[in-house]
């Protein structure tokens, strides 16, 4: 992160925090890993690797900082820090589970309460490849999304269907950098560079 700030070529780049929410096995980590790394594993353990990833969309000059819940939502113990400053949220449900769809609706309400009012929210019906086991009709989810003012897509982390589209559409919807500056003036990036040597002034050798 420190390097990004000092690289002049990226000076205009907009950083956008994006958070994922949704029931445990809905496929939050899988979506992120598919999008950022192009990977998919059938039995994805809740991994360290998906908790905080970044991805740049050069055409739009946007860098996503993607946060996963790291399981803290399980006992309703997600910290306020998680929502803080998030420019966008993807609420994920599993199209084969009505429960996960209801849970997604609850997350939308929670975000409307806790998140910033101009946060971009997207609803993703994941596991779209499991058509034969579908429990949530596309029309039903679309109708809900329209009503709640969410952008909606059905996705499959397994086949990669609509995954890039989902993130790209969020990027397009983000307010432009000048309208939403994120890095405040005077911000300090903590790094492990050794402390600079004390300046030796001429008068006190």
């Amino acid at each position, binding site marked *: 992160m420190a390097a990004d700030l000092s690289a002049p070529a990226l000076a205009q780049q907009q950083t956008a925090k994006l958070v994922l929410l949704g029931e445990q096995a809905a496929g939050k980590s899988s979506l992120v890993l598919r999008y950022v790394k192009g990977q998919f594993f059938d039995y994805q353990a809740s991994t*360290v690797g998906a908790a905080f990833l*970044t991805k*740049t969309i050069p055409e739009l000059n946007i860098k996503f900082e993607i946060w996963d819940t790291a399981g803290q939502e399980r*006992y309703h113990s997600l910290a306020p820090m998680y929502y803080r400053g998030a420019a966008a949220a993807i609420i994920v449900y599993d199209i084969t589970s009505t429960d996960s769809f209801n849970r997604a609706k609850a997350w939308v309400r929670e975000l409307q309460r806790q998140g910033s009012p101009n946060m971009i929210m997207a609803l993703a019906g994941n596991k779209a490849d499991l058509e034969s086991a579908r429990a949530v009709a596309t029309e039903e989810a679309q109708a809900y999304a329209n009503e709640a003012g969410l952008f909606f897509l059905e996705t499959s982390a397994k086949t990669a269907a609509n995954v890039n589209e989902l993130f790209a559409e969020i990027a397009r919807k983000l307010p432009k950098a000048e309208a939403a500056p994120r890095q405040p003036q005077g911000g300090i990036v903590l790094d492990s560079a050794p402390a600079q040597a004390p300046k030796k002034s001429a008068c006190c050798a």
Partner: protein
Amino acid sequence: MDEEYDAIVLGTGLKECIISGLLSVKGLKVLHMDRNDYYGGESASLNLKQLWEKFRPGQQPPPSLGASRDYNVDMVPKFMMANGQLVKTLIYTDVTKYLEFKAVDGSYVLNKGKVYKTPVTPNEALASPLMGMIEKFRARGFFSFVEAYDVRDPATHKGLDLRRMTMGELYTYYNLDAQTVDFIGHAIALHRDDKYLGEPALPTVNKIKLYHDSLTRYEGLTSPYIYPRYGLGELPQAFARLSAVYGGTYMLNKADAEVVYDESGAAVGVSSAGETARCKFVVGDASYFPAKTRVAARVVRAVCFLSHPVPNTNNAHSVQIILPQKQIGRHSDMYVFCCSYAHNVAANNKWLAFVSTTVETANPEAELAPGLALLGHIDEKFVTVSDVHAPLDDGSRDKCYISTGYDPTTHFETTVEDVLSLYRRITGEVPDLDSKNPRLAEPPAE
């Protein structure tokens, strides 16, 4: 909850969250619980609603203060030394990526009733109105010696053995007068009383060097301190996230969480709502271990809401003022901290000022008068007196590793020392904070 863990951590204060994070990263299976429905315990930052609920139940915050959610009021106000142990811990654990920091504008000291910028470099000593001309040159000599001093390089020692020589003797060697000694010891080395004068000089020289190195650690710092946007309550949340990322399980709102002991008196688990999670040991703050701690000190703190910067601080948006004990006729120092909307802890054009000290009398609130007098008009004020608990045992026998309460020091050095001590007692290892944790094998982003 009926599961087996390596460690159960009780309370989500900063110390508990750092420990939880370090243990999870080490590969231990950790369950972390809190009786409150928010993170941070004693070291939380509260919004206006939470603050009023806690101290003025049934009353509403006045609308003139602005929106509740714009506030993050620290319960234990402290700043971070830019080159201190907490910054090293944040880098060691790679938790920095979850947080944003900003510099603290200034560091001041009270002298003969007036507030002065704390001089710390040889040149600042020369420019400071705190000292007369001759004293300035003596102070410059002292600071030059300290700046150059390297424990491994005898050439920088000038023949002085700082392990034997006391700090009082070192001051005398440089002929410093009592006023100068007072601000060096209290405003720069950040000692809380004068016991250090009779102790070896080396630790104090290191403290002065820490202050100086912090001042030069990041470009553009005008004080040795930094502070996170949105308040200190972000710190425990960030370390809790680290723990969760490495498999730690989080449960808030466990009002009835209680340690379960076996017949030998050793902790074997924690019960809540009729279920028991078993574990090899328990870590937590004193409030979860009644009868296993003693009151080591009492601290009185005032939280004040201001609509203006603290007078005589060059309109600083964030500042610290140290009131050395002798300047105000006390045995322990008093501290003023101030932050504002610039660090996102208050509504626009509002400042939060904290005054704190160690309790010395039966009327703690009255003791704060010299600090409060520096603030100008105060819109709202809350005063709290808290006991600082310390564990009676080291945890080896009863498997209860208990953190010490937050002392009135201005920074986090003693906080991290306590965490490292707990970690060492639990694991037998001492992390090398000057490195990056080798276990953090998270693949680089992209």
